[in-house]
């Protein structure tokens, strides 16, 4: 196949819909989503089953179900306390948090790419995560002193909310800077992302200077990204925000589909573009903020997942968004399982794994889409 003929359907699949293929695509999309649903259940079970300690997980699952219905203290009869703790207090919260964060990051990536009409937009790359990290760092360092009253008022939600506000401000700034006359310049966007990243990095550096040793350790955790600290408290602090986002985001699909035609065309077919953008930015900032607050900066999920799915089921956001949530959850649980096992009994931060897998992938997209990304 020559380069010219190969690139035509690619452009069509990005900027609009190939009507001829639509019927097939929908059937395929539904099949893929079903498959991903099954895969998610399988990955979650694998995440519960695999680790440095071998545990009879299938025997424990009914006990877990009973525990959810009526919690009791201590391990159920016939179950080793060690096995019970490993599954209930270590692996299950990690699997659940991994699913939530993976889904949030992948959907955030997909929504941003739709919003900026560019496959390279991603909360990690354009600096939204850095902004969210700054918000979180602010509360970690100043939470016991300058911001103590706010901290006591918001409790476990203080850090996720601060991360949300940090992410929101960064996203709004990026959008303002990168978009002119309804057209987003990717070069400006990425460069603005670098500038904002440097700025937030400098401010985080300032915080490092006033932080004490314990706070420094907590801060260091943002750099790498990890689900190692997962517990039910963190799940409870991130779950409401991320679940609201996952519930709301399907209602944006029609708007995001329309937006691929361009803003003018989208408003001609009855889409309230400005409102769509506002809601999308709010949701992305909220979900990214909540994810960054509990797991630090885990990169590249938001790029890799939507891109893989676009290649298989096409750009229709009605399918792309829920499928991204499912695949993102699967991938992050799998990466976390790997991070728990490859250097056992020690642990490899998950951010290293996703970056190793994601960065080459990002370059590959860059090369493939060179003509399309405006770079």
């Amino acid at each position, binding site marked *: 196949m020559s380069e010219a003929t190969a690139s035509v359907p690619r452009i069509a699949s990005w900027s609009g819909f190939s009507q001829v293929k639509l019927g097939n695509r929908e059937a395929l999309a539904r099949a893929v989503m079903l498959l991903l649903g099954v895969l998610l259940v399988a990955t979650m079970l694998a995440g519960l089953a695999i*680790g*440095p300690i071998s545990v009879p997980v299938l025997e424990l699952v009914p006990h877990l179900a009973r525990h959810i219905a009526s919690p009791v*203290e201590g391990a159920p009869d016939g179950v080793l306390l060690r096995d019970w703790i490993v599954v209930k207090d270590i692996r299950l919260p990690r699997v659940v948090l991994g699913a939530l964060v993976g889904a949030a990051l992948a959907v955030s990536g997909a929504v941003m790419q739709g919003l900026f009409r560019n496959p390279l937009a991603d909360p990690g790359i354009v600096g939204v995560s850095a902004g969210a990290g700054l918000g979180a760092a602010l509360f970690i360092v100043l939470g016991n002193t300058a911001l103590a009253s706010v901290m006591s008022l918001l409790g476990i939600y203080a850090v996720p909310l601060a991360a949300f506000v940090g992410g929101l401000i960064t996203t709004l700034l990026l959008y303002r800077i990168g978009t002119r006359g309804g057209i987003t310049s990717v070069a400006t966007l990425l460069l603005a992302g670098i500038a904002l990243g440097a700025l937030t990095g400098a401010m985080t550096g300032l915080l490092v200077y006033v932080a004490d040793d314990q706070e420094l350790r907590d801060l260091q955790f943002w750099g790498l990204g990890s689900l190692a600290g997962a517990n039910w408290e963190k799940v409870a602090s991130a779950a409401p925000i991320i679940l609201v986002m996952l*519930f709301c985001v399907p209602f944006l699909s029609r708007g995001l589909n329309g937006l691929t035609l361009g803003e003018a065309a989208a408003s001609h077919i009855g889409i309230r573009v400005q409102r769509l953008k506002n809601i999308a930015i709010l949701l992305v900032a909220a979900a990214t903020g909540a994810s960054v607050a509990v797991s630090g900066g885990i990169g590249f999920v938001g790029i890799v997942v939507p891109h893989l799915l676009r290649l298989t089921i096409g750009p229709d956001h009605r399918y792309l968004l*829920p499928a991204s949530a499912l695949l993102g959850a699967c991938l992050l649980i799998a990466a976390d399982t790997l991070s*728990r096992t490859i250097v056992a009994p*020690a642990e490899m931060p998950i951010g290293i794994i996703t970056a190793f897998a994601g960065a080459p992938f990002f370059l590959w997209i860059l090369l493939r889409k060179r003509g399309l990304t405006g770079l």
Partner: protein
Amino acid sequence: MRHLFASRALGVLTATALTVAAFVVPSQPLLAEDTDPERSSRIVAVGGSVTEVVFALGEEDRLVARDSTSTYPQEAIDLPDVGYIRALSPEGVMSVDPDLILMLEGSGPQEAVDVLKSSGIAIADVPEGFTAESIVAKVRAIGAALGVPDKAEKLSVQLERDLEAAQVDAASRASDLRVLFILSNRGGRILASGADTAADGIIELAGGTNAISDFSGYKQLSDEAILSAAPDVVLMMDRGGNHGAGADELFAHPALGQTPAGKSGNLIRMGGQYLLGFGPRTADAIRDLSAELSSIQGADRS
């Protein structure tokens, strides 16, 4: 429209499943059964000095794993590594099936320690400190946890005497040089140790003066702070990577080169764990450092 409904339904299902999972209520920490310390035979040592003390007590046969800062003696390195002292993985630690974890103060993260406590494994906290007394306190705490208080007492007395002799020795040389400990000089940024650090403690014990006293912990120094600290000698850890810059390279730093240390090229390198560990080898480290300091002072005077 039906497809749209299907996709939403799937989304709702996923979300519901996650919500349900989110409400699994964590149970309260379970009380550990009191284990007889004398019988604990599968011990994880977390903290380089903790491992050294276990070896010094001759109880190393009971160790099953160590953390990544435990790099002395050589036999310790052969034990499985449960990761960095501040980044322990609870499941990794549990996987070596320990019945006792000796944890140096500052081990973490807190979440990991909480889970380990709830699993019923006995955990003995070992206090950290940067004085001669704190070394003895470590030995006593570890001896009690291992159920060998007599051995620990013997080692404590011996260490106490040794440390005192080393300090008297160092004081007699009375170098009183201003020493700047540099943790890292990566990218020309000088990360130095202030008060309340292991480096501050060992410099004091060896009869030197920490050139930095106006902050505690490790912080980056500005050029002017380096000049006003006016160190007579720079102390660094002896290990590879960005910690291992040579004297020429180090003193090529514009501010550092203008200090007394830079002008006469005074750089002392010592093994990190040996110098900063505050364990059984600290008396030797005091003697080595004090000897280095007094030879530098002798050279400077002549």
